[in-house]
């Protein structure tokens, strides 16, 4: 029995004729301490998948089990990091983490809780900006707070929903390196959802592609056998990396052709721009 099991999970949104099945028949097993990346196009239901795993929403069919127990509700066993940070804007970085720690570890002494928060602030290199409000922090810093908050919960599993999607390329690269470092320290089970192939290869043990929606489902699993620690610089020359990247790209491109064929049937309305200058 795997640590996290998804069995025939399906989820639809909408009512009646507008009902769209977003995810269809998802099967996935994740072992404890494993880093799995779910790779997919935008709008294919990646966030829905993460929300299902975390228990924020319930599947229409199938089941999500963690440690053999069905996930019915979200809880502190599962830490989230979202693309939009989801920090409380009226609290400072430290207070955002305090809120979580104070609530979950009520039996700890005050100083122990403070040390705990300090440790995670330090881990994401934010000790200096701890008293700043989210709006005073850059996107990368906000995401660090969000990561620290999720880790400070001591969750059994971490769900990262395109955590670096809103960041610029340089910040993203440095945060990827940091996430990789933090992960190799305590080897938490992580499910990362992303649309960045390099990010997936850099961080994950296994990569699971999500087919384009609607009725998205998981494709064949790509195992990343590259040794850790991995760095971007080494990648560029590595034949294993090149092959893997090629295989995954090819897999996704095969869908691109598929979608183009169906688009050919759509006839565009005959609209011409009006001449605005001439009245």
């Amino acid at each position, binding site marked *: 029995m795997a640590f996290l099991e998804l069995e025939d999970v399906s989820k639809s949104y909408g009512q009646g004729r507008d009902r769209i099945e977003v995810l269809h028949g998802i099967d996935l097993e994740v072992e404890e301490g494993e880093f799995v990346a779910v790779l997919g196009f935008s709008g294919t239901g990646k966030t829905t998948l993460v929300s299902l795993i975390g228990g924020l929403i319930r599947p229409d069919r199938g089941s999500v089990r963690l440690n053999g127990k069905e996930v019915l509700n*979200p*809880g*502190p066993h599962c830490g989230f990091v979202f693309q939009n940070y*989801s920090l409380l*804007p009226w609290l400072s970085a430290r207070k955002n983490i305090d*809120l979580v720690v104070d609530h979950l570890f009520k039996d700890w002494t005050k100083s122990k809780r403070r040390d705990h928060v300090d440790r995670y602030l330090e881990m994401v290199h934010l000790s200096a900006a701890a008293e700043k*409000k989210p709006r005073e922090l850059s996107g990368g810093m*906000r995401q660090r707070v969000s990561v620290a908050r999720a880790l400070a919960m001591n969750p059994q599993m971490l769900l990262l929903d395109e955590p670096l999607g809103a960041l610029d390329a340089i910040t993203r690269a440095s945060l990827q390196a940091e996430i990789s470092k933090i992960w190799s320290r305590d080897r938490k089970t992580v499910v990362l959802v992303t649309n960045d192939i390099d990010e997936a290869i850099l961080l994950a043990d296994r990569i699971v592609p999500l087919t384009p929606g609607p009725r998205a489902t998981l494709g064949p699993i790509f195992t990343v056998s590259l040794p850790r620690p991995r760095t971007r610089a080494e990648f560029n020359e590595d034949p294993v990396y090149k092959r893997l990247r090629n295989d995954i790209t090819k897999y996704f491109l095969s869908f691109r052709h598929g979608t183009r064929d169906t688009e050919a049937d759509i006839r565009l309305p005959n609209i011409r721009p009006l001449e605005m200058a001439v009245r």
Partner: protein
Amino acid sequence: MTKTNSEEWIRQVLFKGGIPLLTFGIFLLIWSRASAGIQTNLGQVPGPGQVVEQVKSLAYEHMNERQKAVEFYKTQKERNAKKLSEDPSAQVKVRKYTGKPTYLDQIGTSLRTVFTGFLIASVVAVPLGILCGLNRTVMTALNPLIQIFKPVSPVAWLPIVTMVVSAVYAVPKDWLPKSYVISSITVSLCCLWPSLINTSIGVSSLDKDYINVGRVLKLGFFAKVFKIVLPASMPYVFAGLRISLGVGWIVLIASEMLAQNPGLGKFIWDEFQNGSSQSLARIMVAVFTIGLIGFALDRVMLFFQKLASFGTEQRA
């Protein structure tokens, strides 16, 4: 500061200060010209000059009245002291000075009343708004009542409130006059709705991510409300409170006029009934006072509203 900077600054001052001053000047000009030609039963419609005259006169009356009060207490004290020195067991009476309330007293009464009403309304409206925003059943249940009572004018409530208060609060305490209770409740009935509606909108349009934070932590109901829902909807709540206080102030004057409850409204009504040649000018003073106080209240609430919003235009 460079030269261009100081030039820019002067231009700004001239623009932001000069234009409103100019408008006000034009307003005064039109007012004095127009008023000069109209004769009423209470004499000529007052121009700016007469109004300023009445401001002085009202201030003088206030000072005069205060002086009388001080003298009254002084002579009372002396009289009692004298009595006691003659006969230590004598029963001395301490009476309150019962002069007529001055214009400043009326302003004070009005402000006290509006704040009491506003406070009652806020204490009811904000929690109820939170419940409405959190729970669709509560919202659906209360919505018809809210929609029906929201457009009702204070004037319609006044007789009912007066009768109910008279029946329930039959023996008024010295420190809590009946008229004060009636006005406050009328005000609160009218400034309940903006706060209630705004709070419920703020809560129900809460960012789902914030709610999810609470769900992941498995926060209880009260922890959720106080740690997440209330702080997150603060900008909406304060926007609602600001509208409420504005409405309350408008409502108060009307209800004071009608119910003959002390305050600025009664001042206006009394002057109207009094019908002296200064009455209209005095009423104009009241009009400006009401306007200025309303403006000040709005600015104070705006300050709190800004304090409570944490850069909402930028999502964190």
